[in-house]
Structure formats: structure tokens, C-alpha cells
């Protein structure tokens, strides 16, 4: 009988569905064929070892951790009531802030409290004006910066170009060197 067939019988043996006749063939072959016998012994021992690997106790806190994770997860599902609570809270906060500003903060600085809609609009208008002023000032200084940049650009273009080229060259070289290292490492492993 061929060793190849014996190998199939071995697999049947480990599957647990070998017939008595086949088992006898297997054992008889192994008596005459040391390589097959060695294979069989090694595999039998190994698989016995796998079977005998002990079950270990999971950590005690595992259940608690899982339950905590599972229950915490539930809080992410926002239900309608929670949403309403949050909305109400937000509206309350806005009203409170408005009242504080108009009746406490403004009087403290000697400004008439805003009660009317018109008053609120006026404040808003003032704010917009301020923001516009700020914007104009900002664009002015930005313009100055741009002029500076143009000067620098004109004077130093060549210089900057050389720097960039040098950086790219060094980067490519490093990349190549590292790639070569990686490859030789893998080849060494094989």
C-alpha cells in the first residue's frame, strides 16, 4: 500500500471514522515504514495535546464588564422624552441668559435694559457693525501681509525652489533605503 493512501487513512483515524479493517492496514503499514510511523506518532501526540489543553477560568470581572457595556450602550439610544427634556432645558437657559443680560448686566453698565423687540434689534445691529469694522481691519492687515509675501516670493523664489527639490530628493532616497531594508528583512525570514 502507498504512503499517500496511508496518509488518508491517518486523517480518517483523526476524524474518528476509521473502520477496523482500515486501522489494521494503517498499523501494519506503520510497522514496516518508519517515516509514516513517525508522522503518525507526532500527529497523534500533538492532537492529543490539543485535546488536553486545559480550559481556563475567565476573569471574574468579565461578566460585570460585559453587562456594564451592554447597559451603557442603551443610553446612546435617545428616546423622545429625553430629547424633550434637553430641548426644554436649552430653551430655559436661553431665556435665563436673555433676562440676565437685559436686566442685570446692561443696567450695571448704565445702559437701558432692552425690553422691546426694537431694543434687541438695535443691539444686534450694533454687533453687526462691530463685526464689520473688525472684518475691514482684518482685511487691511491681510492685504499688508500679502504684499509682504509677494516681495518675499519674488526675491526668494529660486532659493525656495532649491530647498523643496532638496527635500524631495532626500525623502525619495530615504524611502528607497527603507524599502530595500524591508525587502531584505522579508527575504531573510523566508
Amino acid at each position: 500500500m502507498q504512503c499517500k493512501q496511508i496518509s488518508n487513512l491517518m486523517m480518517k483515524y483523526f476524524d474518528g471514522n476509521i473502520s477496523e479493517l482500515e486501522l489494521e492496514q494503517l498499523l501494519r503499514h506503520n510497522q514496516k515504514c518508519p517515516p509514516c510511523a513517525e508522522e503518525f506518532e507526532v500527529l497523534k501526540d500533538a492532537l492529543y495535546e490539543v485535546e488536553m489543553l486545559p480550559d481556563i477560568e475567565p476573569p471574574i470581572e468579565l461578566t460585570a464588564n460585559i453587562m456594564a457595556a451592554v447597559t451603557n450602550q442603551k443610553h446612546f439610544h435617545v428616546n423622545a422624552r429625553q430629547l424633550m427634556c434637553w430641548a426644554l432645558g436649552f430653551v430655559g437657559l436661553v431665556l435665563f441668559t436673555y433676562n440676565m443680560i437685559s436686566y442685570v448686566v446692561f443696567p450695571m453698565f448704565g445702559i437701558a435694559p432692552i425690553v422691546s423687540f426694537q431694543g434687541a434689534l438695535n443691539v444686534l445691529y450694533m454687533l453687526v457693525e462691530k463685526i464689520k469694522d473688525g472684518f475691514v481691519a482684518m482685511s487691511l492687515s491681510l492685504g499688508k501681509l500679502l504684499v509682504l509675501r509677494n516681495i518675499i516670493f519674488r526675491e526668494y523664489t529660486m532659493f525656495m525652489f532649491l530647498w523643496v527639490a532638496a527635500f524631495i530628493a532626500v525623502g525619495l532616497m530615504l524611502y528607497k533605503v527603507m524599502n530595500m531594508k524591508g525587502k531584505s528583512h522579508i527575504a531573510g525570514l523566508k
Partner: protein
Amino acid sequence: MDASDIEIINQCIGGDTEAFEHLVNRYKKLVFNTAYRMMGNREEAEDVTQEAFIRIYNSLSRYNPEFKFSTWALKITTNLCLDNIRKRKGETVPIDEQFNIFDDDLTPEEQFLRKESQKQVLAAINKLPEKYKEFIILFHHRNLSYQEIMDITGESLTIVKNRLYRARQMLKEYLINADKESEKVCNASK
């Protein structure tokens, strides 16, 4: 506590989060140990177990009572393990060397030999590609039937048989090579 799995699952779906604890307690050992043998170390096994149970909880409504709950739980666990092993490609991962199953009637030398052979087998198993490792662990360590493995992995009977066959061949080659190498080391030291 004596409720059947499906009863507990229905309770959980009905909104009783606490009932899930019974399921966790019932299956944590199975899930944790399978993950432990797949990942090779405790920390990762703990992470996988936790994530597996969270996934199980979130997809309880999709559980098909045609299958055993353990099969379904193992399906989720092994998929997670495979994902995690693929993610860590290239990194070296510590392999625990905890062996806590010794018969007290073994002499110290016998215990040492046992430990050594266990270590070798574990190292060989952890060298197997993950797709093959999974089958060895499910069939030989967890003693599952072909049918259960087919349900867990979603593969056909032929593929399950082929993978097991290939996995055993690889295991045998690793072990025989390891033997030869250790012999070489012994000879060199003489």
C-alpha cells in the same frame, strides 16, 4: 436560572437587560476559551470575549433558534478572532505560557516533559494560518462535530474536511521540523 436559552433571549429582546447576565454566565467559559486558544494570549481573549457578547446582545433579535445558541455564539466569536488576527498582521504578539493542568501523580520530570511538548504544540498551532487554526481548535480542542463546524464557519463539508486535512499536515510538518532543529541544537551543544 434554569430558563432555556430561548426563553432568556426572548426576555432580553423584551427589554430585560438583566436576563442577559444568565446567558453570559452560561457561555462565557466557552467563548473565552475558544478566543484564548485562537488569539494565544489572555488580554486579547478578554477583549474579544467582551466584544463578542456585546455583538451577541445587539443581534439577539436575529438569532435563529434552528441552531444551538453555542453554535451561534462561536460563529460570532471566531469571526471576531479572525478579524483581529488579520488586523494585527506583522506585529508580534506574545503567546501566554500558562499551563495549569497537571495530574498530581506525575513526577517533576514528567511534568516538565509534558510542559515542553505542550509548549511546542501551542507554538506550532499559533504558527498555522488563522483559517486553519480555527478548524483545528474547533474540531480537536472543542470536540465539535462536522455539522457544528459547518454551521459555525458557513463552509461546506468538503471544505471543512480539506481544511482539517491541510491543517494537520502543516501541524505535523512544523512539529517534525521543530524536533529536528532541537536535535541540531542538542548536537551542537555537545
